[in-house]
């Protein structure tokens, strides 16, 4: 009987590695391509779909094709719509990937990329820039994203140090450190904002998130940071599975949980602070996308992480499409769109994730 079971056991071992993950990832990439195409086609200036497709193909290296678009249409496509779609993809992908990573790092299904105070810190940096230095540039780069990035990074570092000073480097003390830092910085941000009432509207516009001013310079600004952050997080898929055994379970397998956590907190902070710096505070992407993917049946971080990256990119492009078109010609803040979808999903996750009696 043992022999029979042995044979069956060996046969039942699922094929591991890329083969098992290729199909869902290909599907997600197709969804991303569809979302991107819709994002490029929709807008106040109606453009023929065929012309847009031909123009895009013409843009590929070594391919030449006459699109039939006018110079103005070409400019709208290449200088307005495409950078906005690309920026949406970068920001959405980063936030969803960062959320998935934090849910694993903190063993908390409701963790999001802003958990350690990145949003509060970036909010303070951006508010300070709007209130005290509106329109100021340093070396050709607007000071607002720089201050937002610095604020977010400093806040997460402070939360990490506060959490660590509580003794130990457990997930819980880090979260509590984040609570302390975020509350403090939010209060300071409100103080700065209220000190100059004439700029309150600008501050709110930023806080609600927007891709409206997206241009290639924004893309160029965030790409190095989100690229590095995404690479580091994606490489840690296997170790995030190990962390799910808890700190002691990880240590017993030779993995220093606190060290892995530090690396991932640094990567998430880098990517999130960069994303927030150019897009404002876009909420819920980091929670709803990874959970939707889990609900669709993805298990294991090596599948969850790449799917979150691609799914988050597709989701934010679609949300931006709604934000641009729902009340056209006016634009909804994209944070409003993601929260309107996100809050009910968040409630659903909360309901089904625990507190069962």
């Amino acid at each position, binding site marked *: 009987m043992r022999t029979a079971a042995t044979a069956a*056991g060996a*046969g039942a071992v*699922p094929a*591991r590695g890329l083969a098992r993950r290729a199909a869902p990832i290909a599907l997600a990439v197709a969804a991303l391509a569809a979302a991107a195409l819709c994002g490029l086609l929709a807008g106040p200036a109606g453009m023929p779909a065929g012309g847009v497709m031909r123009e895009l193909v013409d843009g590929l290296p070594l391919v030449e094709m006459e699109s039939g678009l006018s110079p103005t249409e070409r400019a709208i496509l290449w200088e307005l719509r495409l950078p906005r779609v690309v920026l949406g993809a970068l920001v959405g992908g980063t936030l969803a990937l960062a959320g998935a990573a934090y849910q694993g790092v903190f063993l908390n299904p409701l963790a999001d990329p802003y958990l350690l105070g990145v949003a509060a810190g970036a909010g303070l940096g951006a508010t300070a820039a709007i209130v005290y230095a509106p329109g100021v540039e340093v070396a050709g780069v607007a000071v607002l994203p720089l201050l937002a990035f610095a604020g977010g990074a400093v806040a997460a570092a402070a939360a990490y140090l506060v959490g660590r000073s509580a003794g130990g480097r457990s997930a819980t003390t880090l979260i509590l450190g984040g609570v302390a830092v975020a509350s403090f910085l939010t209060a300071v941000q409100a103080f700065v904002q209220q000190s100059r009432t004439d700029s309150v509207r600008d501050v709110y516009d930023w806080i609600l998130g927007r891709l409206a001013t997206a241009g290639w310079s924004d893309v160029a600004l965030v790409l190095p940071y989100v690229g590095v952050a995404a690479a580091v997080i994606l490489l840690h898929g296997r170790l995030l599975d190990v962390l799910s*055994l808890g700190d002691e*379970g990880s240590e*017993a*397998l030779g993995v220093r949980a606190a060290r892995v956590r530090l690396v991932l907190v640094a990567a998430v902070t880098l990517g999130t602070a960069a994303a927030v710096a150019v897009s404002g505070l876009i909420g819920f992407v980091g929670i709803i996308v990874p959970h939707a993917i889990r609900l669709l049946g993805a*298990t294991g971080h090596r599948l969850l992480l790449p799917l979150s990256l691609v799914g988050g990119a597709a989701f934010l492009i679609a949300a931006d499409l709604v934000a641009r078109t729902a009340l056209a010609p006016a634009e909804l803040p994209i944070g409003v769109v993601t929260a309107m979808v996100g809050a009910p999903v968040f409630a659903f996750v909360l309901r089904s994730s625990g507190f069962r009696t």
Partner: protein
Amino acid sequence: MSLLTLREVAVDLGGRPALAGVTLGVERGEWLALIGPNGAGKSTLLRALAGLCRGRGAIELDGAPLRSVGRRALARRVALVDQSPTLPEGMTVSDYVALGRTPHIPYLGREGPQDRRAVADALAALELGPLARRRLETLSGGERQRAVLGRALAQSPEVLLLDEPTTALDLGRAQLVLELVAHLRKERGLTVVSATHDLTLAVVYADRLALLSGGRLAAEGPAAEVLTEDRLLRHYGVHVRIVHDPAGGLAVMPARPGPAFGTAAGGSA
């Protein structure tokens, strides 16, 4: 030379001594059962052997101080099956067992053919093949324990540390798990150190018992020497009768205390 050597090992937990002056050796291929009342230090001793808690004194693995063996290197040789291990929700049995390969894979590396073989082998050895795709939360208590053992086995360890591996199991499932451990031990030359409350099962499966009490080693040796009625009364505060059977085994039977202790009628009626 013993595979594991403890010399004057002392560990404090939360300012209180959990282990004090424990000196003990475990031979290669031996099954040593740690017994003792709650809070005696059995789990702490296992955790110390797995390199999970710091203390004073010396622990050596094959003559090398445990502290000089790196964390990953130690995890390749010593596997701990915790009393209540975390079973991540949504994870499949085969993915869970595969986590046992962690110490054999570099930090950002991925599984190689050897790792996949070890996982398939562990699944087969514990007859987990039909359960490989099941999620952990859908398993019964006995199946869970087999999955946890499978993960430990995938570590390809020399030493298997088991913290109350049968506590949550009924008599039949408990025997099944211990039979599996005995079989694997023989097949792979494993050294086993297990903590248990079931003295009778400890006698059946272990070569030697070590009785811990209040963090100290109270007695060690063959079951027949360690398990005496006086000693169990002193350390567990329990009245028992030790019954020897003609085949050389022994059983620990609870007995009622009181004036009528030892008579067939018992009680005060």
